[in-house]
């Protein structure tokens, strides 16, 4: 069952189609590096203004599912490619229309108008044809397909297509000769003159020594038309009067052609395209993504091989490895207390947890092989800040003020991520404050990740789970960035120098490539 009237590819219900577009960056974004993700996702898509969609997490499971299904459809076969090719043509159309505003000469403007309509016709026809060949599953795309095929087979549209093609063929068959000598320009019909460049090229072909520089000058195209060109075009119009009369009539007849629903779809579907394109190279590097099971009631969350998406994007570009982590909460468990050696991936773990939930709430596929996530009402992050001299508060006070604000607003449906709070005070103070905060969080029964150097926090309650960053036993200097469920240990191992250089017999043999 899908709605008979198609409204939006992003929202399943009509009332959701009319909403305020948020342009402010949500508060936890920078701490979780979600700003980097959103910037990268929207980087090449500026004209679509996609950020409002990415700044608006959903708050009902139905809409999340609506989007997940659309995204899954787009990932199937070549659906995405079809959308992309549609979008390219729509972009081309808009560029042509924009350029006409700056043009002076009649036949020049009319020529570009014809190109714009042609791009639109191609976009619609191509997408309608492509969508029919796919086995679509999502309510969203099924409804859109119905809308689009009805539109594409309407009389108005089919005759637009037919007229456009005929006129284009007629104009492109026009060919003429130009003779330039000094300031004299003569124009006449083409009479089969042969290509001299080809002959010159053939003469020198024997010296070809592999590839050389391309000397073809990129001559500015579409940057308007000079008076000389306009004069020439007028002469060409006199050589071929009928074709140009047809063009005049066409432009007068089709002065408005664009369908509003298709235009809205063109923008909204880019939300999916942008995100899927962003994760594509990361997937190709072998990292898994999945459609999480989203629940607004169960806090038994889990992730298999989840990772920090912003970090993965960087690592893949630099060809370095990305470490995946598993986590789960069962029964009464609500809070991850993460401790262990520094630079061991603790902050990354906290970010991963936050990113997964946020991206999941957008209806996007999230990092990991499998995930069950909670649909939060608010996502709060409390990360250590540089001291801010403007607010006149000490760092500790600042920490407390910020945490207080979060706890006042948080509900049992919120998620809080705390990264190294209270590092600027004495250990005793820190232990006391942390415990107080944790008690409140425990009472609220909300989901929380708490990165801390205070081991005691791990065993505060049945709601807390201890997670520890780990090291390579043979080389404590090397980090695994693996975070595992276990109590902390502080083991360090000495290592022989040859072993460090990986030059033991078996190590070296392993290294030498066949």
């Amino acid at each position, binding site marked *: 069952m899908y709605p008979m009237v198609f409204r939006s590819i992003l929202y399943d219900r009509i009332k959701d189609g009319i909403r305020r577009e948020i342009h402010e960056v949500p508060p936890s974004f920078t701490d979780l590096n979600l700003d980097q993700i959103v910037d990268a996702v929207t980087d090449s898509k500026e004209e679509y203004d996609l950020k409002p969609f990415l700044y608006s997490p959903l708050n009902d499971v139905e809409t999340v599912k609506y989007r997940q299904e659309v995204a899954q459809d787009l990932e199937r076969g070549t659906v995405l490619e079809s959308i992309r090719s549609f979008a390219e043509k729509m972009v081309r159309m808009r560029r042509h229309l924009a350029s006409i505003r700056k043009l002076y000469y009649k*036949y020049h403007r009319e020529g570009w108008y014809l190109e714009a309509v042609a791009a639109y016709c191609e976009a619609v026809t191509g997408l309608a044809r492509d969508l029919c060949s796919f086995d679509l599953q999502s309510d969203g795309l099924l409804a859109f397909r119905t809308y689009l095929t009805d539109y594409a087979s309407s009389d108005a549209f089919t005759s637009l297509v037919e007229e456009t093609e005929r006129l284009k063929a007629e104009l492109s068959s026009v060919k003429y000769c*130009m003779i330039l000598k000094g*300031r004299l320009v003569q124009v006449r019909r083409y009479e089969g*003159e042969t290509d001299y460049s080809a002959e010159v090229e053939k003469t020198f072909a*024997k010296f070809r020594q592999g590839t050389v520089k391309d000397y073809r000058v990129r*001559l500015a195209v579409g940057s308007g038309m000079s008076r000389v060109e306009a004069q020439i075009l007028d002469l060409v119009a006199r050589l071929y009067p009928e074709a140009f009369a047809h063009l005049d009539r066409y432009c007068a007849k089709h002065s408005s052609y664009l369908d509003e629903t298709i235009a809205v779809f063109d923008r909204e579907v880019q939300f999916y395209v942008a995100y899927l394109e962003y994760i594509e190279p990361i997937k190709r590097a072998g990292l898994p993504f999945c459609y999480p099971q989203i629940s607004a009631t169960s806090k038994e969350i889990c992730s298999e091989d989840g990772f920090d998406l912003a970090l993965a994007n960087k690592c893949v570009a630099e060809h370095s490895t990305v470490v995946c982590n598993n986590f789960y909460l069962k029964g009464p468990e609500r809070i991850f207390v993460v401790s262990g050696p520094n630079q061991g991936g603790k902050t990354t773990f906290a970010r991963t947890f936050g990113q997964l939930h946020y991206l999941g709430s957008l209806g996007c596929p999230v990092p990991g092989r499998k995930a069950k996530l909670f649909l939060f009402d608010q996502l709060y992050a409390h990360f250590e800040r540089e001291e801010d001299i403007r607010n006149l508060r000490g760092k500790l006070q600042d920490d407390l003020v910020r945490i207080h604000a979060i706890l006042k607003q948080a509900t049992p449906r919120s998620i809080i991520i705390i990264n190294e709070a209270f590092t600027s005070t004495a250990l005793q103070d820190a232990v006391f404050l942390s415990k107080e905060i944790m008690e409140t969080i425990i009472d609220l029964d909300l989901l929380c990740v708490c990165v801390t150097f205070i081991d005691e926090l791990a065993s505060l309650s049945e709601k807390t789970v201890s997670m520890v960053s780990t090291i390579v036993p043979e080389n404590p200097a090397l980090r695994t960035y693996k975070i595992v469920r276990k109590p902390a240990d502080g083991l360090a191992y000495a290592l022989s120098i040859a072993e460090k250089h990986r030059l033991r017999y078996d190590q*070296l043999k392993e290294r*030498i490539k066949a």
Partner: protein
Amino acid sequence: MKVHLMYRDQDFDLEQEPPPNREALIQDLELRTLFHAMAQGDRFLYEVAKTAVLCGSTDPDAIRYRQDILRDGLENPAVIREMYQITIESAENKKRRWLGVFSQSPSGILHSSVQMLEMFVGLLKRLRRIADEHAKEFESEGWTTFFRVIEEELDDGYFATVESHLKELKFRDGILLSVGLGPGNEGAGYILGKPHNGKSWIERMLVRDSAAYSFRIHRRDDHSARALGALKDRGLNLVADALAQSADHIDSFLRVLRIELAFYVSCLNLYEQLSELGEPASFPVPVALDERRHSFHGLYDICLALTMKRQVVGNDAAADSKDLVIITGANQGGKSTFLRSIGLAQLMTQCGMFVPAESLRANVCEGLFTHFRRKEDATMESGKLDEELGRMSDIADAITPHSMVLFNESFAATNEREGSEIARQIVNALLDKQIKVFFVTHQYELARGYYDEHMESALFLRAERRSDGTRTFKLIEGGPLPTSYGRDLYSRIFGTDS
């Protein structure tokens, strides 16, 4: 038309990346001395010699191809140098006359390309004449093909065609362009029409039928004149590109010729110096990668001879079917010199040169690596053993089976037991991976360990020391002896006899 004097089927790439361990090779084998001798003060020859020596071939057949070409060259040094001169003139003309394609517009590109090509045609004609006169004096496959191609491709008729195009492309009669309508009704597909022979085509066109319209740009309308120039440029874009590329191709032909001849000229330079010293040089017999051959007669350290400017001691050895050669014995007994001569001969063999020996036969190797003891790390960031192992680790990153490693007093920066154990593990791993190892060491424990194993594939050489304590700088076959001869050195320097 290809040069192919370095490879049968490809150009020599001067920009190719030399092996990652090049700096170690240059330093350990003192290759700069060799390069300077080949270059004789010419920076270009130096670069070519350096790249050629460092980037040798692993294909015995390809090596023989170059050896034959070089043999011809040694017979006809004057012809080689004369051809090399032509390629140098090309580079110099370009610089002196500011020839080259620097313009941003197709008409400018076309104009400078015509000038370049006129200059090149002159040089190519001279190359043709050399081929006419001397081709019969050359026997090698490489030279025979080269001269035949020159004679076939650059015949008189061809030069005539080229010259007529170059004249035509100055467009004394105006330009004919054929044009279509592109998107937006803008002119598109500007193509230069072929000028007709006989009566000026432009005259015929201008007096033609009614289906032609014309206008003239006012002589003060510079804006329109520029716009018209831009249209002309569209029409000339392809032909300018074709011509500029042709100029580039000929330029690159002459540049490739210059590079490849430079290698042979640098070999001629070196050969002449060895002849003056009276040192022998011979063409080695390269053997396939997977065989184990290493036997030679009178192999000397060419860099030592060039530096001392006199004949130096050569060594003989028969190390066929060996993949481990351990060299022990007296300090300053010629061990390092020997090790260097092995490395130098290997590089020279694989780049197709003659070698400093009366005879040599050796299998080629995939890569040559040196691990020589270095001075204490100046930065003090890492201990000496750490530094040595760091360099070994770099080798491990780059090395592949059928390579060769020359160790000189490696891993001795710790106590002998530990050092030997590290060295043993490394050498064993290398041998298991079909890597040939030469190891100069005074670590008795290491050498003795291998000696006691009686390995078929190991050879032991020792720096010779006469009973009176003097050294011959010759290496003889023999196992390690427990004491080193440091006290000899001590007694010579301090002038006392112990």
